[in-house]
């Protein structure tokens, strides 16, 4: 870099860039916060859904699955599993684990109560109704 371009110029550019970027980011965050109520399905955040999210977290589901594409890539996407499989299937599936099929990926038995299973399904139903800009591309997730 040329000699005319000094370190203090570079430092000023850095501080300008840092402040500008964070202010712009905060502005966009503010706008997003205002836009979210129409998109994030918060009207359906029932006590069951809130408890269901807690069940989801307490059992580290994200350690194998993705939810809206985020998480681990070892097991199927669950953001749309309610649409793909339905609530009864999800509950029966979880109660039937692990399959014990030799050599196949195994899902642990989490010993959830009926109430916890219902809450979890309510959470997955709520998640499937978030406006995700039509992601995933198809029902397979």
């Amino acid at each position, binding site marked *: *870099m040329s000699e005319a371009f*000094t*370190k203090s110029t*570079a*430092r000023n*550019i*850095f501080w300008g*860039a*840092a402040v*500008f*970027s964070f202010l*712009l*980011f905060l502005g*966009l*965050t503010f*706008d*997003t916060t205002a*836009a*979210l109520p129409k*998109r*994030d*399905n*918060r009207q359906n955040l029932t006590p069951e*859904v*809130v408890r269901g*999210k807690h069940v989801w*977290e*307490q*059992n*580290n589901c*994200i*350690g*194998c699955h993705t939810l*809206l*594409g*985020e*998480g*681990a*890539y*070892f*097991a*199927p*996407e669950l953001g749309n599993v309610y649409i793909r499989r339905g609530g009864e299937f999800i509950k029966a599936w979880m109660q039937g684990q*692990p399959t*014990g099929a*030799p050599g*196949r*990926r*195994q899902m*642990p038995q989490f010993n959830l109560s009926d109430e916890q299973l219902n809450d979890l399904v309510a959470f997955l139903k709520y998640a499937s109704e*978030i*406006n*995700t*800009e039509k*992601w*995933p*591309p*198809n029902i*397979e*997730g």
Partner: protein
Amino acid sequence: MQYQSQAVAKPYFIAAIGLFVGQILFGLVMGLQYVVGDFLFPEIPFNVARMVHTNLLIVWLLFGFMGAAYYMVPEESETELHSPKLALILFWVFLVAGALTVLGYLLVPYAKLAEMTGNNLLPTMGREFLEQPLITKVGIVVVALAFLFNITMTVLKGRKTSVTMVLLLGLWGLAVFFLFSFYNPSNLVLDKFYWWWVVHLWVEGVWELILGALLAFVLIKVTGVDREVIEKWLYVIIAMTLITGVIGTGHHYFWIGTPGYWQWWGSIFSAMEPIPFFMMTVFAFNMVNRRRRDHPNQAAVLWALGTGVMAFLGAGVWGFLHTLAPINYYTHGSQITAAHGHMAFYGAYVMVVLTIISYAMPLLRGRQANSNKSQVIEMWGFWLMTVSMVFITLFLTAAGILQTWLQRVSDTPMPFMQVQDQLSLFYWARELSGVVFLIGLVVYILSFFVKGETKASA
């Protein structure tokens, strides 16, 4: 070593390498579970292995950053560390807390661990990379603040250089953004939105400042190029990092319920994220070419150049591959993401920590550089790990392309698990590359125990 208190860096570096070994072993377990699904089930289910793999990575990199700061700051500030004793106490606190957390993951079912550690009071667990129990998270904050106090006091009483300013800014940013890990609203979209304020603003924001400072420090030392020149580069690089990376957070806001305009903001700004990484590559090579001395520690020079190249490839190129919204629509949350994650973390953060360790460890052991024999073995470790990581990335990329096609692009999309069966060839190849990586790591560690002719201390 110019200041006695720099010696506290040594246990940090040793712990970092030890935890690195653990990280790789659990990585191999997971890699095998991808193809032999019931391997170690139910003793170590995949989610537990993954938690250990990623959390060990984070913790050992933090050990590396802290060790780097304890080594660099006294030398840059031209004064002894504010409190070497505090640094040593924090070392043991962090190590014991980290070890207990990992043991908790391995020995107690996660739901029970959550219950035992107060997750019902303030739920923060069960989110990717932020799986740590509440007490561990609080512990991280306490250790980070005490560490920052120690480092900041040292900088304040001594010479202030641009390298330490940037390092401090990065480290404070790391601590501040971690606070968002305590915010976990029931609203999933808000949860995800602010989760990225920890994860993205760490790895594509403030951590890059730390990376830049570490690289600049080592380049000043091994090339003898004028500090003014190197620090000028550093400022320009991190300016580009923040210009592209902060709004670049938007590439995570495409499909999680956030407004559609993020597809524009995220695509455009994150498409520019390779620029600072490319500048870092040019910077490293430029400085080494203009070197005013031939430093006897050629292994450290190799690691510094390697960081420049691999960070650009892993974070820059492999990030760009899937960062544009129309492409990400198909690749989001696939093996493409995994491919990028592996090479980016290795190329940027693993390699920069190994760079500073390579430079500082001989000095901490009382010599300017290791013997030629030891350096050759270290370089073998460098090449084995780096080349095998390239192959891990290529195989995961191939798996990701096939997965994306079969599951999302094709007219007759296949279910997830059927697609996974089709990918097993690539998963086996990845696992094999992972074994070579482990061999490389063992070779690297062996280099510390090779004596040979040592050059005289400076």
